């Protein structure tokens, strides 16, 4: 019995979620737009086949999409988050360990009976996910994370395999690794790809067989790890707990440019509240705050600024974080600039359990506990009703500068007003 690493992702995940809940989209081309309806960030397989490119600005393709009768949707993160949760819960039940890697991606481990192909296992998991949640997934199986990722590429590439590939039972992997371009190998970025290309290395097989000394000299242990994983030696472990993140970033583009400090403060306040509630959700504390703002990157007088402040005591208290953030906002604000984006980063995160107390903060702990209760209460109310039901003063929103989502389907499984209709006519 050995351990196999599996890598699972949702096929065209956002598009699949929309199709799952909206029957009118069945069999049709569909594209999903980014925040603010800016760019195309996801396509259904039909739209892909019709030649709609990824990442293009929506306005450039508006007419073409209409001609091809392709449906357009704003990103509906409430829906994707809900489907993602269901998917991860189901995967957790069916794997020994599970690392949630992103909204639609996870690594897991399962036991492999000696030299046995896990295709059957994958096939039934795939069927189970489709039956329960209604979305298609691809499964890559291998000895290491890097190999399982490659397996997943192959699962998508080789049609007859219907979304599953197990490279772990392939003794001589050359034939398959040769098909994988080096930039598709997990961990190899643009720069490394170029460096490798200059050395004449273009596919995963060549990378696996190149001199490890050369890799180590240029990319250190990190580069070496990728090569070793390709050789089947485990170097990158499965991380089950996703809450030990080192930072939380909440950042968004506005639906229209903001040039007043007041509106900027509202935006920053809102992001602080989202970020700090996330902090509390994972029982973490932050001890440094960064606020950043930027004007349109394409504008002539592009302006970008950020400012960081350290905290003496790590906290998850919205009030403290809010107060500091607003001071930082004022510092970096410049009049007459049209800001299109702002964000808040909470770093140096630590677990709540090892809360460090300053020696001389007598008497404060009582108040602190009350604030913690108050924050939790606000979180619960917002969870129960809507995100903005309760907030602190500066986050009260008068104008709707939040992201534009004109093409939002407004269908989701998580709020009673938005569930789909079934006809009994």
């Amino acid at each position, binding site marked *: 019995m050995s351990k196999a690493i599996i890598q699972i992702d949702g096929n065209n995940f956002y598009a699949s979620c929309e199709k799952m809940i909206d029957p009118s989209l069945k069999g049709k081309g569909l594209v999903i737009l980014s925040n603010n309806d800016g760019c195309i960030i996801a396509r259904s397989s039909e739209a892909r086949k019709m030649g709609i490119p990824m990442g293009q600005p929506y306005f450039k393709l508006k007419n073409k999409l209409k001609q091809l009768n392709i449906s357009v949707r704003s990103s509906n993160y409430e829906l994707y988050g809900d489907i993602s949760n*269901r998917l991860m819960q189901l995967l957790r039940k069916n794997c020994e360990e599970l690392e949630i890697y992103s909204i639609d991606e996870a690594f897991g481990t399962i036991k492999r009976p000696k030299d046995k192909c896990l295709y059957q296992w994958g096939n039934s998991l795939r069927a189970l996910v489709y*039956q329960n949640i209604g979305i298609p997934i691809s499964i890559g199986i291998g000895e290491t994370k890097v190999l399982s990722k490659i397996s997943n590429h192959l699962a998508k590439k080789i049609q007859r395999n219907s979304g599953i590939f197990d490279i772990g039972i392939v003794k001589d992997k050359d034939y398959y690794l040769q098909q994988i371009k080096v930039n598709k190998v997990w961990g190899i970025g643009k720069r490394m790809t170029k460096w490798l290309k200059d050395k004449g290395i273009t596919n995963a097989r060549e990378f696996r067989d190149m001199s490890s000394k050369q890799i180590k000299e240029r990319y250190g242990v990190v580069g070496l790890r990728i090569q070793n994983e390709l050789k089947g030696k485990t170097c990158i472990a499965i991380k089950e707990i996703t809450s030990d993140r080192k930072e939380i970033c909440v950042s968004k583009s506005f639906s229209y440019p903001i040039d007043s400090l007041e509106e900027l403060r509202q935006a920053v306040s809102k992001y602080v509240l989202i970020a700090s509630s996330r902090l509390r959700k994972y029982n973490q504390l932050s001890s440094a705050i960064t606020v950043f703002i930027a004007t349109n990157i394409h504008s002539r007088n592009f302006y970008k600024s950020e400012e960081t402040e350290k905290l003496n005591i790590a906290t998850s208290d919205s009030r403290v974080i809010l107060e500091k953030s607003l001071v930082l906002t004022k510092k970096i604000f410049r009049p007459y600039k049209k800001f299109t984006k702002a964000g808040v980063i909470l770093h140096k995160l630590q677990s709540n359990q090892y809360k460090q107390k300053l020696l001389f903060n007598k008497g404060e702990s009582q108040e602190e506990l009350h604030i913690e209760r108050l924050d939790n209460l606000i979180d619960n109310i917002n969870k129960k009703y809507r995100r903005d039901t309760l907030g602190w003063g500066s986050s009260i929103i008068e104008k709707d500068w939040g992201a534009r989502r004109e093409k939002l389907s407004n269908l989701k499984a998580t709020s*009673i007003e938005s*569930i789909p*209709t*079934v006809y*009994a006519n």
Partner: protein
Amino acid sequence: MNSNNSSSSSKKGSSTLLIPLVKGTVSAGFPSPAEDYIELGIDLNKYLIKSPISTFFLRVSGNSMNNAGIYNNDLLIIDRSIKPHPGHIVVALLDGEFTLKRLIKEKDNYYLKADKENYPAINLYEYLDIHIWGVAIYSIHGLQK
């Protein structure tokens, strides 16, 4: 009651009222004999939903399933983990809409049929495009208009 949590500030003459943080009850008078028997109450989610991962809600529109006890505007609970069998009320994907029908089997043929007279049955072999989305397990019907 744990006095440390509730009245430490009164010694300093402060008028701040602190809320006790310990769990437990304040005993004034006789303790309630039911105290040890208090349960959490009925959780409808637990009672109605066996598999939260695969459960979805839909709103019913129309009256063709009245004989099955499903009425216009009812809240329908679907469990996708259940494999459809003859007799089940199912949500089918037909002509770009969710449609509510009963799945029936007659002489080795499967049909989708409304629970109402004079409604034609749809033979599943003739409509290859039909897809069963889920099986309905409960319909929640409000009695007050």
